[in-house]
Protein backbone atom coordinates (compact mmCIF):
# COMPACT_ATOMS: atom_id res chain seq x y z
CA UNK A 1 0.00 0.00 0.00
CA UNK A 2 1.31 3.45 -0.78
CA UNK A 3 0.15 7.03 -0.91
CA UNK A 4 -0.90 6.64 -4.53
CA UNK A 5 -3.33 3.85 -3.65
CA UNK A 6 -4.79 6.02 -0.88
CA UNK A 7 -5.42 8.96 -3.18
CA UNK A 8 -8.49 10.87 -2.11
CA UNK A 9 -9.59 14.37 -3.00
CA UNK A 10 -9.76 15.49 0.61
CA UNK A 11 -10.87 19.03 -0.16
CA UNK A 12 -13.72 17.91 -2.37
CA UNK A 13 -14.83 15.17 0.03
CA UNK A 14 -14.73 17.24 3.21
CA UNK A 15 -16.29 20.27 1.54
CA UNK A 16 -19.34 18.24 0.59
CA UNK A 17 -19.42 16.27 3.85
CA UNK A 18 -19.39 19.37 6.05
CA UNK A 19 -22.33 20.86 4.16
CA UNK A 20 -24.18 17.55 4.66
CA UNK A 21 -23.40 17.38 8.40
CA UNK A 22 -24.59 20.93 9.00
CA UNK A 23 -27.70 20.55 6.86
CA UNK A 24 -28.70 17.19 8.33
CA UNK A 25 -27.95 17.74 12.01
CA UNK A 26 -28.44 21.49 12.34
CA UNK A 27 -30.78 22.32 9.46
CA UNK A 28 -28.51 25.19 8.51
CA UNK A 29 -26.96 25.92 5.15
CA UNK A 30 -23.30 26.74 4.92
CA UNK A 31 -21.36 27.51 1.77
CA UNK A 32 -17.76 26.92 0.82
CA UNK A 33 -15.78 30.13 0.32
CA UNK A 34 -13.54 30.04 -2.69
CA UNK A 35 -11.44 33.15 -2.17
CA UNK A 36 -9.56 31.18 0.44
CA UNK A 37 -9.30 34.04 2.92
CA UNK A 38 -9.49 32.44 6.38
CA UNK A 39 -11.11 34.35 9.24
CA UNK A 40 -9.40 35.62 12.34
CA UNK A 41 -10.99 34.77 15.66
CA UNK A 42 -11.09 36.94 18.78
CA UNK A 43 -11.97 33.91 20.87
CA UNK A 44 -11.75 30.58 19.15
CA UNK A 45 -13.26 27.14 19.71
CA UNK A 46 -11.53 24.27 17.94
CA UNK A 47 -12.80 20.69 17.81
CA UNK A 48 -10.20 18.09 16.95
CA UNK A 49 -10.31 14.39 16.16
CA UNK A 50 -7.23 12.37 15.31
CA UNK A 51 -7.05 9.37 13.02
CA UNK A 52 -4.33 6.85 12.47
CA UNK A 53 -3.41 3.58 10.82
CA UNK A 54 -0.50 1.89 9.08
CA UNK A 55 -0.80 3.94 5.91
CA UNK A 56 -2.17 7.25 7.15
CA UNK A 57 -2.17 9.49 10.21
CA UNK A 58 -3.62 12.91 10.81
CA UNK A 59 -6.23 15.07 12.44
CA UNK A 60 -9.34 17.05 11.56
CA UNK A 61 -9.88 20.47 13.14
CA UNK A 62 -13.09 22.49 13.10
CA UNK A 63 -12.29 26.14 13.92
CA UNK A 64 -15.02 28.62 14.85
CA UNK A 65 -15.44 31.83 16.76
CA UNK A 66 -16.85 31.31 20.24
CA UNK A 67 -20.00 33.16 19.18
CA UNK A 68 -20.57 31.00 16.11
CA UNK A 69 -19.84 27.86 18.13
CA UNK A 70 -22.55 28.92 20.55
CA UNK A 71 -25.00 29.57 17.68
CA UNK A 72 -24.28 26.15 16.22
CA UNK A 73 -24.81 24.53 19.60
CA UNK A 74 -28.14 26.36 19.87
CA UNK A 75 -29.16 25.05 16.44
CA UNK A 76 -28.24 21.48 17.36
CA UNK A 77 -30.04 21.69 20.70
CA UNK A 78 -32.97 23.59 19.14
CA UNK A 79 -32.61 26.57 21.41
CA UNK A 80 -33.04 30.23 20.41
CA UNK A 81 -29.84 31.51 18.68
CA UNK A 82 -29.14 34.06 21.39
CA UNK A 83 -29.73 31.66 24.27
CA UNK A 84 -26.81 31.53 26.67
CA UNK A 85 -25.35 28.05 26.51
CA UNK A 86 -22.72 26.68 28.84
CA UNK A 87 -19.24 25.87 27.57
CA UNK A 88 -19.76 22.18 28.33
CA UNK A 89 -22.75 21.97 26.00
CA UNK A 90 -21.02 24.00 23.27
CA UNK A 91 -17.91 21.82 23.55
CA UNK A 92 -19.99 18.67 23.25
CA UNK A 93 -21.80 19.88 20.13
CA UNK A 94 -18.60 21.07 18.41
CA UNK A 95 -16.87 17.83 19.41
CA UNK A 96 -19.70 15.79 17.91
CA UNK A 97 -19.68 17.83 14.67
CA UNK A 98 -15.92 17.28 14.40
CA UNK A 99 -16.43 13.59 15.12
CA UNK A 100 -18.88 13.32 12.23
CA UNK A 101 -16.47 15.11 9.89
CA UNK A 102 -13.57 12.88 10.91
CA UNK A 103 -15.72 9.74 10.85
CA UNK A 104 -16.73 10.48 7.27
CA UNK A 105 -13.13 11.16 6.23
CA UNK A 106 -11.99 7.98 7.97
CA UNK A 107 -14.61 5.99 6.06
CA UNK A 108 -13.57 7.53 2.75
CA UNK A 109 -9.92 6.74 3.48
CA UNK A 110 -10.78 3.16 4.46
CA UNK A 111 -12.74 2.73 1.23
CA UNK A 112 -9.58 3.80 -0.62
CA UNK A 113 -7.56 1.12 1.16
CA UNK A 114 -6.15 3.24 4.00
CA UNK A 115 -7.50 1.55 7.11
CA UNK A 116 -7.40 3.77 10.17
CA UNK A 117 -9.17 4.44 13.45
CA UNK A 118 -10.42 7.70 14.91
CA UNK A 119 -9.98 9.15 18.38
CA UNK A 120 -12.68 10.63 20.57
CA UNK A 121 -13.03 14.40 20.09
CA UNK A 122 -11.14 17.05 22.03
CA UNK A 123 -11.82 20.78 22.32
CA UNK A 124 -9.32 23.64 22.46
CA UNK A 125 -10.47 27.12 23.49
CA UNK A 126 -8.43 30.28 23.49
CA UNK A 127 -7.58 33.65 21.99
CA UNK A 128 -4.10 33.24 20.58
CA UNK A 129 -3.23 29.63 19.82
CA UNK A 130 -1.98 28.36 16.49
CA UNK A 131 -2.13 24.83 15.12
CA UNK A 132 0.91 24.09 13.00
CA UNK A 133 1.74 21.04 10.97
CA UNK A 134 5.10 19.35 10.55
CA UNK A 135 6.92 19.95 7.25
CA UNK A 136 6.13 16.51 5.82
CA UNK A 137 2.43 16.69 6.69
CA UNK A 138 -0.10 17.72 4.05
CA UNK A 139 -2.32 20.55 5.28
CA UNK A 140 -5.67 21.37 3.74
CA UNK A 141 -7.65 24.41 4.86
CA UNK A 142 -11.27 24.85 3.81
CA UNK A 143 -13.16 28.05 4.51
CA UNK A 144 -16.94 28.18 4.94
CA UNK A 145 -19.51 30.89 5.46
CA UNK A 146 -22.63 30.84 7.61
CA UNK A 147 -24.73 34.01 7.51
CA UNK A 148 -21.68 36.14 6.71
CA UNK A 149 -19.52 34.57 9.41
CA UNK A 150 -16.57 32.48 8.31
CA UNK A 151 -15.19 29.34 9.88
CA UNK A 152 -12.68 26.74 8.77
CA UNK A 153 -12.00 23.03 8.62
CA UNK A 154 -8.38 22.03 8.66
CA UNK A 155 -6.97 18.60 7.88
CA UNK A 156 -3.43 17.57 8.62
CA UNK A 157 -2.63 14.28 6.95
CA UNK A 158 0.43 12.19 6.34
CA UNK A 159 0.53 9.16 4.08
CA UNK A 160 3.17 6.68 5.14
CA UNK A 161 5.12 5.04 2.33
CA UNK A 162 5.07 1.29 2.90
CA UNK A 163 5.90 -1.59 0.60
Amino acid at each position, binding site marked *: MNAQTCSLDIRHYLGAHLVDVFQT*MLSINVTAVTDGRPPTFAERVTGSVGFGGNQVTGAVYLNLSARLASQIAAA*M*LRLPPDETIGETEVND*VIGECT*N*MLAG*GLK*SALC*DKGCDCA*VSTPAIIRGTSFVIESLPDVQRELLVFDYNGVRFTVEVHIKFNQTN
Partner: protein
Amino acid sequence: MPIKILSVDDSRTIRLIVGRSLRPYDCVLWEAANGEEGLAVAVREKPDLILLDVTMPVMDGVTMLARLKEDPALKAIPVVMLTAESGRDNVITIARLGVCDYLIKPFKEEQLIDKVGRAVQLQKKEAAAPVAAPAPVVCF
Protein backbone atom coordinates in the same frame (compact mmCIF):
# COMPACT_ATOMS: atom_id res chain seq x y z
CA MET B 1 -46.19 -1.20 28.61
CA PRO B 2 -43.74 1.48 27.49
CA ILE B 3 -40.82 0.33 25.38
CA LYS B 4 -37.53 0.41 27.31
CA ILE B 5 -34.69 1.95 25.29
CA LEU B 6 -31.07 2.42 26.34
CA SER B 7 -29.00 5.10 24.58
CA VAL B 8 -25.24 4.62 24.96
CA ASP B 9 -23.18 7.50 23.59
CA ASP B 10 -20.35 9.61 25.00
CA SER B 11 -21.90 12.68 23.41
CA ARG B 12 -24.55 14.28 25.55
CA THR B 13 -25.74 16.05 22.41
CA ILE B 14 -26.53 12.76 20.67
CA ARG B 15 -28.26 11.39 23.77
CA LEU B 16 -30.31 14.59 23.89
CA ILE B 17 -31.28 14.24 20.21
CA VAL B 18 -32.26 10.62 20.81
CA GLY B 19 -34.39 11.65 23.78
CA ARG B 20 -36.00 14.49 21.83
CA SER B 21 -36.79 12.17 18.92
CA LEU B 22 -38.41 9.57 21.15
CA ARG B 23 -40.36 12.04 23.30
CA PRO B 24 -43.65 11.65 21.37
CA TYR B 25 -43.56 7.88 21.84
CA ASP B 26 -44.54 5.65 24.70
CA CYS B 27 -41.10 4.63 25.85
CA VAL B 28 -38.74 4.92 28.77
CA LEU B 29 -35.22 6.04 27.93
CA TRP B 30 -32.05 5.29 29.88
CA GLU B 31 -28.73 6.91 29.07
CA ALA B 32 -25.14 5.85 29.49
CA ALA B 33 -21.94 7.67 28.49
CA ASN B 34 -19.80 4.62 27.66
CA GLY B 35 -19.95 0.87 27.19
CA GLU B 36 -19.17 0.06 30.78
CA GLU B 37 -22.03 2.18 32.09
CA GLY B 38 -24.22 0.85 29.30
CA LEU B 39 -23.59 -2.76 30.28
CA ALA B 40 -24.47 -2.00 33.88
CA VAL B 41 -27.76 -0.40 32.85
CA ALA B 42 -28.51 -3.24 30.43
CA VAL B 43 -28.01 -5.84 33.18
CA ARG B 44 -30.20 -3.89 35.58
CA GLU B 45 -33.01 -2.76 33.28
CA LYS B 46 -33.11 -5.38 30.48
CA PRO B 47 -34.05 -2.82 27.80
CA ASP B 48 -36.07 -3.74 24.73
CA LEU B 49 -33.59 -1.95 22.47
CA ILE B 50 -30.09 -0.51 22.74
CA LEU B 51 -28.86 2.42 20.63
CA LEU B 52 -25.09 2.11 20.73
CA ASP B 53 -22.30 4.44 19.66
CA VAL B 54 -19.06 2.90 18.39
CA THR B 55 -16.19 5.17 19.44
CA MET B 56 -16.39 5.94 23.16
CA PRO B 57 -13.93 6.23 26.03
CA VAL B 58 -13.64 3.63 28.81
CA MET B 59 -15.37 0.89 26.79
CA ASP B 60 -16.23 1.27 23.10
CA GLY B 61 -19.42 0.09 21.45
CA VAL B 62 -17.85 -2.92 19.77
CA THR B 63 -16.61 -4.27 23.11
CA MET B 64 -19.94 -3.62 24.78
CA LEU B 65 -21.73 -5.43 21.97
CA ALA B 66 -19.40 -8.43 22.32
CA ARG B 67 -20.12 -8.55 26.07
CA LEU B 68 -23.86 -8.38 25.41
CA LYS B 69 -23.64 -11.30 22.99
CA GLU B 70 -21.70 -13.35 25.57
CA ASP B 71 -24.43 -12.93 28.17
CA PRO B 72 -27.37 -15.35 27.74
CA ALA B 73 -29.68 -12.89 29.52
CA LEU B 74 -28.78 -9.99 27.23
CA LYS B 75 -27.79 -11.41 23.88
CA ALA B 76 -31.30 -11.27 22.41
CA ILE B 77 -31.69 -7.53 22.99
CA PRO B 78 -31.71 -5.85 19.57
CA VAL B 79 -28.92 -3.32 19.10
CA VAL B 80 -28.88 -0.45 16.62
CA MET B 81 -25.40 0.99 16.18
CA LEU B 82 -24.99 4.74 15.72
CA THR B 83 -21.72 5.54 14.03
CA ALA B 84 -20.05 8.39 12.17
CA GLU B 85 -18.12 5.84 10.12
CA SER B 86 -19.90 4.84 6.97
CA GLY B 87 -17.11 3.00 5.18
CA ARG B 88 -17.84 -0.27 3.43
CA ASP B 89 -15.60 -2.37 5.68
CA ASN B 90 -16.94 -0.70 8.79
CA VAL B 91 -20.51 -1.49 7.83
CA ILE B 92 -19.61 -5.13 7.15
CA THR B 93 -17.77 -5.35 10.47
CA ILE B 94 -20.75 -3.92 12.33
CA ALA B 95 -23.15 -6.32 10.60
CA ARG B 96 -20.99 -9.29 11.55
CA LEU B 97 -21.02 -8.26 15.19
CA GLY B 98 -24.65 -9.21 15.45
CA VAL B 99 -26.42 -5.89 15.38
CA CYS B 100 -30.02 -5.43 14.39
CA ASP B 101 -29.37 -2.34 12.29
CA TYR B 102 -27.11 0.69 12.09
CA LEU B 103 -27.51 4.42 11.55
CA ILE B 104 -24.81 6.63 10.09
CA LYS B 105 -24.20 10.06 11.62
CA PRO B 106 -25.19 12.64 10.51
CA PHE B 107 -28.81 11.50 10.64
CA LYS B 108 -32.22 13.09 10.66
CA GLU B 109 -34.52 12.37 13.58
CA GLU B 110 -37.03 10.71 11.25
CA GLN B 111 -34.34 8.25 10.21
CA LEU B 112 -33.69 7.38 13.84
CA ILE B 113 -37.39 6.80 14.49
CA ASP B 114 -37.59 4.65 11.36
CA LYS B 115 -34.72 2.46 12.58
CA VAL B 116 -36.14 2.19 16.10
CA GLY B 117 -39.59 1.44 14.69
CA ARG B 118 -38.20 -1.45 12.70
CA ALA B 119 -36.66 -3.00 15.80
CA VAL B 120 -39.45 -2.43 18.35
CA GLN B 121 -43.10 -1.47 18.08
CA LEU B 122 -43.23 2.23 18.84
CA GLN B 123 -46.55 3.75 19.83
CA LYS B 124 -47.42 7.42 20.00
CA LYS B 125 -48.12 8.57 23.56
CA GLU B 126 -51.38 10.39 22.89
CA ALA B 127 -53.34 7.93 20.80
CA ALA B 128 -51.28 4.88 21.65
CA ALA B 129 -51.68 4.06 17.98
CA PRO B 130 -48.92 1.99 16.49
CA VAL B 131 -46.61 3.75 14.08
CA ALA B 132 -47.11 2.54 10.52
CA ALA B 133 -44.93 -0.52 10.51
CA PRO B 134 -42.13 -0.30 7.95
CA ALA B 135 -40.65 -3.40 6.42
CA PRO B 136 -39.27 -5.50 9.26
CA VAL B 137 -35.58 -6.14 9.48
CA VAL B 138 -33.98 -9.39 10.42
CA CYS B 139 -31.61 -9.11 13.33
CA PHE B 140 -28.29 -10.84 12.89
